[in-house]
């Protein structure tokens, strides 16, 4: 049970797969247009059930409760060895091959 007032994310379908705009690519048209928005729950609710939230601007939105206390989890990604080479190559071209070795 997620308590009333908790900051949550809800999901709502804006357009069903069959009623997308004309002229969009087939792979997109085959999917519903879905929206996610965050806000404070206006009543107790459990994940996966219909919920209502009050957003940061005070609007009311309704949808399926998807996540409680959502947060951003972007990072600096995994190891990308190619990046090490770029600067090293350029410095060698510009400043010569001397190292401090």
């Amino acid at each position: 049970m997620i308590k009333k007032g908790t900051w949550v994310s809800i999901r709502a379908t804006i357009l069903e797969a069959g009623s997308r705009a004309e002229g969009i690519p087939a792979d997109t048209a085959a999917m519903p247009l879905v929206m996610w928005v965050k806000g404070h729950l206006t009543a107790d609710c459990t994940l996966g059930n219909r919920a209502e939230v009050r957003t940061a601007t005070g609007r009311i939105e309704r949808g399926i409760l998807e996540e409680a206390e959502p947060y951003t989890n972007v990072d600096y990604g995994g190891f990308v060895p190619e990046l090490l080479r770029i600067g090293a190559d350029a410095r060698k071209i510009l400043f010569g091959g001397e190292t401090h070795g």
Partner: protein
Amino acid sequence: MAKDKEMGYAAVMARKNRILMDSLGIDFSKFETGTIAFDYEGVMAATGMTFDEIRRIQLAAGVGDTPMLEMRNITALARKYAAPGMGARIFIKDEAANPSGSFKDRRAATAVYTAKRLGFKGVAAATSGNYGAAVASQAAKLGLNAIIAQECYDSRKVGQPEILEKTRKCEAFGAEVIQMTVGPELFYKFLTILEETGYFSASLYSPFGISGVETLGSEVALQIRRLTGKDPDAVIVTHAGGGNITGTARGLAREGCKAQVVAASVNLKGLHMASDGHFNRKSFTTGHTGFGFPFATWPDRSDMPRNAARPLRYMDRYVLVNQGEVFYMTQLLANLEGLERGPAGNTSLAAAFALAQKMPEDAIIVVQETEYTGAGKHIQPQLAFAKKSGIDIRFGDPAEEVPGESIVLPQHPGLIAARDVDMDGLRKSLIRNTLRNNPDADLTDIDIEFLAAETNSSVAFVRDNI
């Protein structure tokens, strides 16, 4: 139930012009002058603000007067691949120094200021890019609410790290963010929000937004004169929707600067912008041909009845670079100049690196923007994400890159190229699109002259191509 029916897709889209007029305070219909022509300068003047007022508003909001930095090491590297006596001095305008980290603050400052002045309680914008953060930042400063609608995820709810970072940044400024799956119907949801809230539409393409960029062009001319005692020879502008080049070129012209204005985009040929499957196979969310071509050849595709950004009027030349080249330049900027910026804003830097090699040593080439970088919005997470999405990342000849399949980092800096787009081809395409979108048009002389201005060509060229 009647109310539900009125909120359906077709009904809302049919009310589009009315909703936009109410949410902007500008009646575009009074600027229509021909069958297809309209009074462009009249639209630009509809802001009711002079250039000096806009500059004052921006400076009061902490926007503008960003540093102009000479890229001495990148210039020296370019000269390694240039003929003797060739290799222009490369300068970069550090627009990342604006409050939310990009030149988009200039566009947002005028729009949000106007919203406040007209008594709106909030502002709304549909954008997945830096502009959302800019609107949110300026709204925070003026005590207005902000709603940003972003195209954010594919149908598996997988999002580009760069866009997810932008969600975070908008929320950090207190904005409400609406995240959507792929599709142009985001605009439908956006219109319902404008109707529901009565907020100001802080469109990227309004005259408020575009006139806000004129200060950038003006600063480029004045700073280069101060630093070097002469005018820049070329100004390179990363091009997507067209506002950057339009405003910059107008600002340069205002100062009497005759620099060649060069648009640069990342080549994403073959990737469809509205395709769910392609959405995460591109490693650039802006500054690419998916926006650059359509907006150059049909600007009125935007969310405004008339787009204030009209790039083909202002570009003297349009060049393309590849994703691998821009990632490579982004790393060079960090490793050789100590500036961690971009990457999308470095599209014009990659182009400048190639173009400088064909210009004399005493010539000056200006890259007119940088943008902030951070977790998610950085070459490392973007390349890591591309690898995870099955994109082949390798060193080689960037000319071999296939967007959506590979990212080819140049084997050496000499392989970075700026590939010219056929300008007359773009001009013909704009004329063709105009006629196609106005099939019953009985063209008047005013319309022909309008098309000549739209394509930066001549009446004779237009007559030959209609």
